[in-house]
């Protein structure tokens, strides 16, 4: 699924990485617990999280995750967007809940990691 399609489905705002909206993502993983994210062995995955702090972006960096979708209408600080930009990540933000976000994307064909 193209990131532009992801953003469209969940009515997401693109916080950074606007030039990468043609990138394809195959799998999604929804978690507020970064320790769980750090146990994943797959790389081609989009992180869906309500954790609106720098550690969400750092965890994505360490896990080779290129896309983070913040849910639950979190306000994302400039420091988070700046770090995402520096690391070349795509950061998205939606007002939808994690459940609704995951449901819409799963229904549209985004695969679970397990």
């Amino acid at each position, binding site marked *: 699924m193209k990131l532009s399609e992801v953003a469209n489905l969940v009515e997401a705002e693109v916080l950074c990485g606007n030039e990468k909206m043609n990138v394809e993502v195959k799998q999604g993983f929804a978690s507020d*617990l970064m320790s*769980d994210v750090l146990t994943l062995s797959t790389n081609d995955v989009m992180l869906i999280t309500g954790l609106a702090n720098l550690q969400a972006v750092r965890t994505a960096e360490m896990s080779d995750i290129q896309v983070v979708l913040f849910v639950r209408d979190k306000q994302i600080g400039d420091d988070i967007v700046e770090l995402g930009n520096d690391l070349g990540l795509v950061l998205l933000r939606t007002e939808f809940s994690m459940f609704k976000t995951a449901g819409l994307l799963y229904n549209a064909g985004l695969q679970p990691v397990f």
Partner: protein
Amino acid sequence: MRLDYKVEGGDFARAGWASSQVKKVLKQLGVDQNIVKRVVVALYEAEVNIVAHAYRGEIGVDIDAEKIVMRLEDEGPGIPDVSLAMQRGYSTATPQVREMGFGAGMGLPNINTNADIFNIETKVGVGTTLEIIINFKSNQ
């Protein structure tokens, strides 16, 4: 090659900075992506542990052609029962640490999963030293 970093307890804004620097170096050296991920996930978990539990710490990284040796030495409360701390789900993390997305008792087990060699030395009331070694040509 030798890299050294200082880590301050409680400084969550900077947690992961050292791991990020090590990742950049390993990528520049052309280390396999899967090995880089194992290194930085283990190092990041350990770095977050210092920020979450200790007063301060130092990270020393030695890289040669075969392996990376990471030594994380902290001044902190130490770990009273290492075997308990190695169990998945056991945690003494504060609510603040949990708000950061950690503190679920998965850090040390995850370091162990990613490391080829993992040693813990700890003394209650003094601090903890972790040694994490990952071989560049391992087949894990």
